[in-house]
């Protein structure tokens, strides 16, 4: 899923069998020998490929139109810097920072889990595990990524929170960002591990052999040769982890709390951007009303944030693809 991002990033076009052109063989031959009706079929295929662009345009347009209505009534500055989010109160206030702080806390906690353990798992799988162990462990780890997010939400609310509060004695609200973030982190471990492992496996064996020849042991080789060599890929894995954490909805909606407040400690609950959208969608707000448009303003911010993060990740993946 997310590792597939890594794979789209560019391939060597080795198909054309002659000539200087790097166009696929089909494209060239097509001009000379086309059967009747084939150009129509080809146009249909092309349309399907362009559909993905249409989806992106559709996302931007469908978010932008209601969001622009929103910003006609609420100044952009107030939206981005305000610290009170009370769209349903009589004296409504539309400062998005409470939602942003909740998202930031949940994301930070998730990364604190997913980054060290994801990279650790990747180092083990790439540098230590024998092939057979690796081919067994990887699918099991990926199963963790396949668990539906509602089930993770259930687990965070009804197992992790009671565990932290009653067994470990941590002061927590029943709905809190700590449990939601921890569980989200566990969910992201396979994403981080899988992309990091791809990057480390792409490091040529000669580098490891050179390191061993200089007298380094396996740990030193892993930490000082392989990890630095795979660095852009590992950063891409982390960045994609951030994108998933920011956009994750069900875990924070179920276990993270619904109250929009400036979050100062992870034991507090707080509505993230996604949780606000989900909860607001459950209510019945009239299409075109300010309350309805609020949803899209937050959605647009969420989309913009993840877009920036994704584009950074795509560039980084592209770089490590080119290095070796």
């Amino acid at each position, binding site marked *: 899923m997310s590792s597939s991002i890594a794979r789209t990033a560019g391939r060597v076009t080795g198909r054309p069998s002659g000539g200087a052109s790097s166009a696929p063989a089909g494209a060239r031959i097509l001009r000379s020998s086309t059967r009747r009706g*084939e150009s129509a079929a080809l146009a249909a295929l092309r349309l399907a*490929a362009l559909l*993905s662009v249409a989806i992106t345009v559709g996302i931007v347009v469908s978010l932008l139109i209601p969001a622009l209505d929103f910003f006609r009534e609420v100044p952009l500055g107030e939206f981005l810097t305000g610290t009170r989010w009370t769209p349903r109160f009589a004296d409504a206030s539309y400062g998005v920072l409470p939602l942003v702080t909740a998202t930031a806390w949940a994301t930070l906690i998730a990364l604190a889990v997913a980054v060290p353990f994801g990279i650790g798992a990747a180092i083990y799988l790439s540098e230590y595990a024998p092939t057979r162990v690796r081919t067994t462990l990887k699918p099991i*780890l990926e199963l*963790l990524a396949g668990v539906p997010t509602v089930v993770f939400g259930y687990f965070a609310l009804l197992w992790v929170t009671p565990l932290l509060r009653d067994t470990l004695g941590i002061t927590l609200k029943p709905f809190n960002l700590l449990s939601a973030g921890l569980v989200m982190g566990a969910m992201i*471990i396979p994403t981080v591990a899988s992309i990091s492992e791809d990057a480390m496996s792409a490091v040529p064996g000669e580098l490891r052999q050179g390191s061993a020849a200089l007298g380094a042991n*396996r740990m030193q080789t892993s930490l000082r040769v392989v990890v630095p060599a795979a660095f852009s890929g590992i950063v891409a894995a982390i960045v994609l982890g951030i994108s998933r954490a920011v956009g994750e909805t069900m875990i924070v909606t179920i276990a993270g709390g619904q109250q929009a407040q400036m979050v100062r400690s992870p034991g507090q609950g707080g509505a993230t951007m996604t949780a606000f959208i989900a909860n607001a969608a459950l209510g019945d707000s009239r299409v075109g009303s300010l309350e309805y448009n609020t949803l899209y303003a937050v959605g647009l911010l969420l989309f913009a944030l993840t877009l920036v993060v*994704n584009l950074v990740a795509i560039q980084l993946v592209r770089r490590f693809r080119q290095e070796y």
Partner: protein
Amino acid sequence: MAVYSPAAAGADARRVVLSTTGRSRERTPASVVFVALLWLSLLVGFATLVALLLDTFVDGFARLDGRLFTEFPSSRAPEAGARPAILGSLWVVGTTAVLAIPLGVAGAIYLEEFSDRRRWLNRVVEINISNLSAVPAIIYGMLALGVLALLGVGQKNIVIGGALALAMLILPVILISTREALRAVPRELRDGSLAIGATPLQTTWRITLPAALPGVATGTILGLSRALGEAAPLLLLGGLVFLSFDPNGLLSQFTTMPIQIFDWTSRPQAEFHELAAAASILLMGIVVLMNGAAIYIRNRYQKRW
């Protein structure tokens, strides 16, 4: 330690040199701690999975009975079931498959077999697909709402609306995996077909695509299992409704299993949490079966060229 066994070293040629560098160097306190930390990292993921499975089984196994499949939701937990949600999931994911698979495969065929990668438009498409696969799921719900509004459909909670959102969500997954499968088909097969006079389109349809079919199936099943477990976009389409009838068509109202689980989890009473856990076991069982099938197809039918 298993890590240093000769079998481990022999299994992977590029590691041979490392494993012959002598044991003493690998046994320094720092390296032993390091390996222990790596084990711990793996353990965190597995422990979470085990805890999650145990927790849902302990909570929900007693309630995983016939009533879950036959009864409608109810405000009295002992009489409640997930029948409309199970049927709704089948309707929505089935429709999603019909929408997403042909479009995803067709798009992948164009990009992999016919597009000229030097053209800027095709490069835009490439980056765009990478980005789409990481757009938050909930955004697709907002997009589906927009599309329904554009088509002038007044009712937002309809099967086709939910399928539309999920189809757009898994389209990048199918596109990317189909492209990888097509890419793995060796050029010689295409060249042979072209050489005996087939047109590029005939070659794709009769040679390349059949050869790539196991990879396409694997990616498609993984995409559909993601669609089956997804709840966020459907919440925006009003998926959280109290249904007392079976969904029976594309324009029928619907709810799905993940949304039913969300609803039951959000209630304060423990009886509903049991129901949520029971439905979770069922949902995870289906997802695991689908993932298992995908892995099996990949290992069993995928040719190594």
